[in-house]
């Protein structure tokens, strides 16, 4: 609400006749009724918590009482860098980002190229490939923790078959992360596929037809016409992949809860476990600040350097 006021006031002062006109034709009333709900909600529950997080990160605080009083400066951040589990979770988050870029997006694009044309069978595949994306993360996690349960799942088939000892991939330090990555790709590639399908369908048919008449092989058409024309879609896809992967949490909890021995935490599951659950508001907020800075630096430079270029 305050924003609407501060921004309308100077304009009104310098141009009194426009203000009177705005009052008469109902513009001012509309602005004063229609904008404040959105601005207030956004400011109170999105903008201020982010600022408060930065403020809390300088304190040692349990979250109770009047407010934070025990100022510790940058000690929370120093403790983060010394906590090997934090470094591990930071690293894991980067691994998820990397897999999203190197496996998820290419798989989504490959599937889009195979089924973007409008036909009955393609509609079926499109629906099926998109199903994982609409399932709740928690349900997906439970389903896959059954599939990889050592007593029931796929691994037990192999181990019983060969008469080996039972293997529990999700409780295994070597295998837990690869299983998480597999589920992660399974869950989200359909999202990217949909973006690419929409982009492919908007490429004019005559362009591809002309290339075919000129003797272009299907592979050449894909390589030199379709993929270059997908560039704007790739720009969007990469943005969502990175921002989404940085916040990965829901899948981790039902599958590993960050275990075994804290080897599969992401930034957010670390924040939840070591900040929120243990009621360390200051320490947890400093993790939030790290996450915010990483996302902000990425989003800002991406918009500045990549998205701008795409527009030219």
């Amino acid at each position, binding site marked *: 609400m305050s924003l609407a006021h501060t921004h309308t006031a100077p304009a009104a002062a310098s141009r009194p006749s426009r203000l009177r006109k705005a009052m008469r034709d109902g513009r001012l009333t*509309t602005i004063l009724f229609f904008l404040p709900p959105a601005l207030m909600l956004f400011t109170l529950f999105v903008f201020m918590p982010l600022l408060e997080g930065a403020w809390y990160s300088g304190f040692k605080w349990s979250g109770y009482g009047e407010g934070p009083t025990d100022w510790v400066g940058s000690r929370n951040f120093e403790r983060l860098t010394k906590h090997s589990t934090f470094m591990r979770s930071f690293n894991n988050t980067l691994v998820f980002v990397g897999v999203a870029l190197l496996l998820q997006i290419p798989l989504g694009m490959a599937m889009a190229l195979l089924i973007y044309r409008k036909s009955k069978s393609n509609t079926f595949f499109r629906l099926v490939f998109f199903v994982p994306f*609409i399932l709740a993360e928690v349900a997906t996690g439970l389903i896959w923790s059954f599939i990889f349960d050592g007593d029931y799942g796929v691994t*037990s088939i192999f181990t019983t078959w060969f008469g080996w000892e039972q293997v529990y991939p999700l409780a295994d330090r070597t295998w837990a992360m690869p299983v998480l990555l597999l589920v992660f790709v399974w869950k989200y590639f359909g999202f990217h596929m949909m973006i690419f399908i929409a982009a492919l369908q908007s490429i004019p048919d005559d362009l591809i037809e002309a290339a075919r008449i000129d003797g272009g092989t299907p592979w050449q058409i894909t390589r030199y016409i379709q993929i270059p024309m997908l560039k704007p879609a790739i720009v969007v896809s990469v943005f969502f992949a990175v921002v989404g992967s940085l916040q990965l949490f829901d899948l981790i909890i039902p599958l590993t809860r960050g275990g075994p021995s804290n080897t599969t935490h992401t930034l957010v599951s670390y924040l939840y476990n070591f900040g929120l659950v243990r009621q360390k508001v200051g320490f947890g907020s400093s993790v939030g600040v790290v996450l915010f800075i990483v996302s902000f630096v990425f989003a800002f430079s991406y918009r500045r350097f990549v998205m701008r270029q795409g527009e030219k």
Partner: protein
Amino acid sequence: MPTFGWRQATRIIVLMLVTFAILFPLSATVLGGFKTQGDLTTNPFLFPRNWHLEFYHGILVDPDFWRYLWNSLFISFVTTLITVIVASMAAFTFSHMRFFGSEYIFGYLLMGLMFPFAAAIIPLFIKVRDFGLVDTPWGVIVPQVAFGLAFSTLLFRTFFDELPRELFEAARVDGCGYARFYLSFTLPLSTPIIATVATFIFVGSWNNYLLPLIMLNSSENITWPLGMLQFQGEYIVEWNKILAFVTLSLAPAIVFFLAAQKYIVAGLTGGAVKG
């Protein structure tokens, strides 16, 4: 062309493999709910030897299950309703009025698209607690609305900007005010975008886990993803019951998806490619 058949065959094989990779865990889940423990251990993925209905039945008569679904439905519905109203009102203002600083205010709201929601959960929890909303549906609804505003306002504004200007001018000449124009012209003409935004917000809320996890704690109030993990905690080794629970909880989402897929796809592509 001899290569045509070969190419076509590879394509079909690849598509079949991916289809299998997606449907296999899902079918194992549905079928698992019909199996006894013993059957599940020796035959985890294929059809049950005997079809047992009691595990599904046990969940369908469990009042907790229905309460979880009801809580989720209430939270998702109210979140969607408020988001659509608040965001479309803001978007209407941005679309119809250029005033000093209006683009800055719009840009301020759009910052919400870049902010990772998870970065602010601890201060958000404290804020909600100070408002006395912890362990109430509103403690989930209000932050969800706030975090959905950026995306929704952007989609609404893009759509409103495309509506014909002449209509508005004609209505103005006839003495129609802004509020009435918004109610009797803009909203009725915008049903496709309302459906898209509503579907997205609804699905996001329905599947949301982190926010309810932080805000809700009594078993009276929790939503279905929390209820599902609680159920799993109780029957930790009885996978047949857990799988039946997962199947029944996912059923509404699948039905909804099949009915609303048009809007989900539109929201993805329209919001993503244009934004």
